[in-house]
């Protein structure tokens, strides 16, 4: 089920009312939320609604259930283990099985196609990648690893199931950790105190970014440039790249804004996932602002266990590059994602090397520097990020090279796709990143002081404009494929 649809418009009020009515009875609330989340998930697949019928409608929700039960068994095993070796064995088996599930569904075809001599014995089969698998597997891993590290104790199966399938974060994040979600199940939120104005702001902004901005940028230029680079001028290629950079931001941050807002209306808080990423003045700064829940996950469960910066300079660079490469591969089983991760990994390593050479040990050296220096840092960072997006977006490597090639050789021909409206949308989207959060909070507070009737009226007008400015139909979210 997609958020900006009539289906969800019918689904959510039912869940909202049911949720707050059942809040006084925690066990029933969890069962209700699990049922609602599985129905939400099943909407993503085709097939009969009858559980015993063939088709994918319940096949992948069943996989989610299996992952839930198995990981709960592993965590209980870790907790009950009498010595460190047994604990380690349980943890290793758990991590291996989770990664095995991910590898099978996500990388089977990639492995077979690219590592022929090694994996050619595998039978050919068309493996369907279930929506959300990368997200719920990463969340299950956080539960298992935190349990192994002693940060969480095994919770009841029903609590873990609620955490893993909770529909606002289920299909495209943010990646909420067990340590962030499970404690919220132990406190009963007060139905008299809902941070609704914040939730409404996130939902409206998210809808606008996804339904209007992302769709406009993809239709007006990005799709055309990336599917047929040679048919477009250098200027169109440049604007196509900028457009895609802002499209993916609008698409993904729009989705997670809606997810965070919806969770807030149900009394659950999620971590922030984006913090104006295109204001970043360095790559390190960018990764503190872009898909923050994945960045933190990779840092805590991959970079630090690899040794982080504790094992010498050379190992630090290797760990950085490796983390970003794996981060790239997490997005998809294709070389272009590996290159995308490689560009970021290399960029981070070079940045670190330059800082160390200049004796700068501060985490964010540029952010507090002189304005011209920050401006140069911003321009360079933005363009490295855009350069990497070319590989992320192009459906194959040759098309990525063609897009970049047009930047060199495509000047002089007409550029009908570069219009004043496109330029204005791109400029406004970039400018909006620099609007102080304090201003948005002030608007939000002023909204919350309005009578209920006017709040409803204001929201209706916002949704009216979103609907009117949107193209027909709903574009799938880019991050659903990951």
């Amino acid at each position, binding site marked *: 089920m997609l958020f900006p649809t009539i289906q969800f418009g019918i689904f959510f009020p039912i869940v909202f009312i049911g949720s707050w009515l059942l809040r006084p009875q925690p066990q029933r609330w969890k069962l209700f939320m699990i049922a609602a989340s599985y129905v939400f998930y099943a909407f993503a697949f085709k097939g009969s609604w009858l559980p015993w019928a063939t088709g994918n409608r319940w096949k992948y929700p069943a996989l989610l259930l299996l992952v839930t039960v198995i990981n709960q068994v592993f965590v209980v095993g870790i907790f009950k283990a009498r010595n460190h070796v047994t604990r380690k064995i349980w943890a290793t088996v758990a991590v291996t099985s989770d990664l095995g599930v991910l590898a099978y569904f996500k990388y089977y075809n990639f492995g077979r196609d690219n590592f022929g001599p090694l994996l050619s014995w595998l039978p050919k089969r068309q493996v369907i990648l279930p929506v959300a698998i990368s997200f719920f597997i990463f969340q299950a891993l956080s539960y298992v690893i935190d349990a192994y590290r002693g940060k969480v104790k095994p919770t009841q199966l029903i609590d873990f199931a609620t955490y893993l399938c909770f529909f606002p974060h289920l299909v495209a994040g943010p990646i909420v950790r067990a340590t962030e979600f499970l404690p919220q199940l132990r406190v009963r939120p007060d139905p008299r105190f809902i941070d609704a104005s914040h939730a409404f702001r996130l939902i409206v902004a998210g809808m606008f970014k996804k339904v209007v901005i992302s769709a406009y940028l993809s239709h007006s230029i990005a799709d055309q440039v990336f599917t047929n680079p040679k048919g477009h001028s250098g200027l169109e290629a440049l604007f196509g790249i900028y457009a895609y950079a802002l499209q993916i931001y609008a698409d993904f941050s729009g989705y997670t804004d809606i997810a965070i807002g919806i969770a807030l209306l149900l009394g659950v808080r999620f971590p922030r996932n984006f913090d104006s990423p295109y204001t970043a003045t360095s790559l390190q700064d960018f990764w503190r602002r872009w898909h923050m829940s994945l960045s933190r996950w990779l840092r805590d469960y991959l970079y630090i266990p690899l040794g982080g910066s504790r094992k010498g300079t050379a190992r630090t660079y290797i760990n950085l590059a490796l983390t970003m490469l794996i981060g790239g591969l997490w997005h998809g089983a294709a070389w272009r994602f590996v290159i995308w991760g490689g560009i970021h990994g290399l960029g981070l390593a070079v940045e670190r090397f330059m800082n160390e050479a200049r004796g700068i040990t501060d985490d964010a050296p540029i952010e507090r520097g002189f304005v011209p220096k920050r401006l140069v840092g911003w321009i360079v960072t933005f363009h490295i990020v855009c350069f990497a997006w070319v590989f992320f977006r192009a459906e194959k490597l040759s098309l990525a090279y063609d897009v970049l090639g047009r930047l060199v050789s495509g000047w002089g021909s007409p550029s009908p796709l570069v219009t004043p409206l496109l330029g204005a949308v791109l400029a406004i989207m970039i400018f909006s990143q620099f609007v102080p959060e304090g201003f948005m909070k*002030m608007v939000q507070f002023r909204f919350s002081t309005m009578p209920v009737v006017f709040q409803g009226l204001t929201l209706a*007008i916002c949704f009216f404009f979103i609907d009117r400015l949107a193209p027909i139909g709903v574009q799938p979210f880019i991050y659903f494929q990951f």
Partner: protein
Amino acid sequence: MSETHGDADRRRPISAGSVAKIGVILYVLAALLNSSNLEQMAIRLPLSSPSRGPAISLTKALHKVSNTLRLTEPGVRVDAYRGITPPTTAGEGGAFGPAPTSVAPDSPPVTEPGAPVESVDTAVAAEPASTTPPETAARPATVADPARLYIGGDSLVQGWGSVLQRLAVATRVVDSRSVDYKAATGLSRPDSYDWPSRLVQQMNALRPQIVIVGFGGNDAQGLLIGGRPFQPGSPEWSAEYASRVGATMDYLLRDGRKVIWVGTPMPNDPTDFVRQNIINQIYRDETAKRAGVTFVDTWTLFESPDHTYAAYLIDDDGQAKLMRQTDGFHLSVPGAERLGRYVFAELQKELDARGSKN
């Protein structure tokens, strides 16, 4: 980010009951303000959907109330500002406008390729079209005077159309700026997306000399004939779909255009297999009736050696490659490449026949 406003950190939580009240106001007002769009969404539901009838009744009633309260006006004004005309009631099969008489086939495009085109009134009565193209000698395409190519159709076209466009542009004797695809569309449901009107717009705006289209992927669904729905496989359905395909071909043939009609590849689903077979047969039959149309049969292009559906096939480089997407119908990148090259071979034949030089 610095906090510069006194109200910034102040929160004013409200109760679940108040949220529900806001929700009710939001839903009622938003539904009334967007009643015309909701009605269109209901109309676009599949004919076989049990919720279509009730949804249409409900949204029509809503639209009536909205009209009475004059709440449809803001929507009309916003649409007018954006240059969008109110939705017209396309005929059951859509309608092609009369043949343009004052514009020579080889005159330049009215607008730049890729630029927005003017809307065309779809309610214009269809003019009976000749089944043979006018005797217009096809000019050779040259670098100085390239042949204008239009590529359009449903979501399947997005992949192979892009490959075809890339290859066509590389010849330097073909001018093609975009692939005009629209997902989840076809010739079955002009009430959902009016391809006849779209084609009229595009032909008038771009003045292509060669047209390559692909439909059918979404057409295996009920058709409204005389207000009654008929399902694929029935004689009424086949006759109606064939007449729509024929009318589309006739329109595209006007002004001496060359038409290349691309069929659908073999699907994995058994029901779709039967239905797509019917659709492809209609394409073959209608093509055979008309000079100037070439049918590109893609049915067997993606079949296994034992003539069944194949997800993997040996590509030109000798490697086994995944050709289809997980839905068992759409093409993967190698699949789109394969079909795009196949269609390009047909285009190349046409260019050669014109004596084109690059």
